[in-house]
């Protein structure tokens, strides 16, 4: 089994860190993992995305054409990755920064106003964790607890004070997506 997750957003939105955290959690859970960033065209003002692969087998290519899941944090990312997700995969959309609706019918779509929720939780910077939480609940390849443990184990010392807030954000995201599965619907719009 192999899960490939792309996280994509503006520089500064924490897309790269979200992908790293997934990799940490995967590693701690005993999987093979790779994480690879792809700088946008520029260091400043561009977009940043990364690919995390979590697999129970040795990983060849760290890049894939059709990921099994994607978290898109802004409009250009939605346009770029929605068409690429493998059929049956999961798309988590940050509706706070996307205007249009996703259109694919063959994937699970989770729409989360992550910035709004994050600001509610105290900081727009937590949007990435809200989205990761949502992904986990929807896609089921790692538990929220595994992510929480990874936060605990790998957040650099200078950021440790943020652990609790991050954890809350993860849970909020997860609880949202949990609803998706319960309801058995394909698309959930959180308002």
């Amino acid at each position, binding site marked *: 089994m192999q899960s490939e997750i792309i996280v994509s957003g503006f520089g500064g939105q924490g897309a790269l860190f979200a992908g790293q955290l997934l990799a940490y959690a995967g590693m701690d859970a005993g999987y093979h993992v790779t994480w690879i960033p792809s700088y946008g065209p520029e260091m400043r*003002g561009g977009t940043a995305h990364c690919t995390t692969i979590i697999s129970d087998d040795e990983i060849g290519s760290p890049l894939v054409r059709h990921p099994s899941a994607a978290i898109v944090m802004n409009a250009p990312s939605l346009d770029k990755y929605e068409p690429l997700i493998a059929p049956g995969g999961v798309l988590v959309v940050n509706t706070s*920064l996307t205007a249009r609706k996703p259109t694919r019918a063959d994937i699970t779509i989770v729409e989360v106003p992550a910035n709004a929720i994050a600001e509610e939780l105290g900081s727009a910077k937590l949007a990435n964790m809200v989205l990761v939480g949502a992904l986990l609940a929807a896609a089921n390849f790692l538990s929220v607890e595994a992510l929480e443990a990874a936060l605990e184990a790998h957040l650099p010392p200078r950021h440790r004070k943020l652990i609790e807030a991050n954890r809350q954000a993860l849970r909020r995201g997860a609880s949202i997506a949990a609803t998706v599965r319960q309801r058995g619907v394909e698309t959930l719009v959180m308002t």
Partner: protein
Amino acid sequence: MPKGRVVINEEACKGCALCVSACKQDVLALAESQINARGYHPIEYVDPRERCTGCGLCAVICPDAVITVYRQRRTPARANTVVTLS
């Protein structure tokens, strides 16, 4: 009527707010609720008390050259010219 007024190209503004701090008349502010296509909160020109003097300091400090500054004509003879700030 204020002595001057400014027009801001909101789509090109990056919201650095340098103009805000440069303006001595306090007629510029970040539009917290607005967000432009590049993801920035642009500047708004709000001058209810008609304080803008058209001094142009905002334009001089703006790194993105997005502010145009107008001033009431003092010498109408000088039509068709642009007074540069240097």
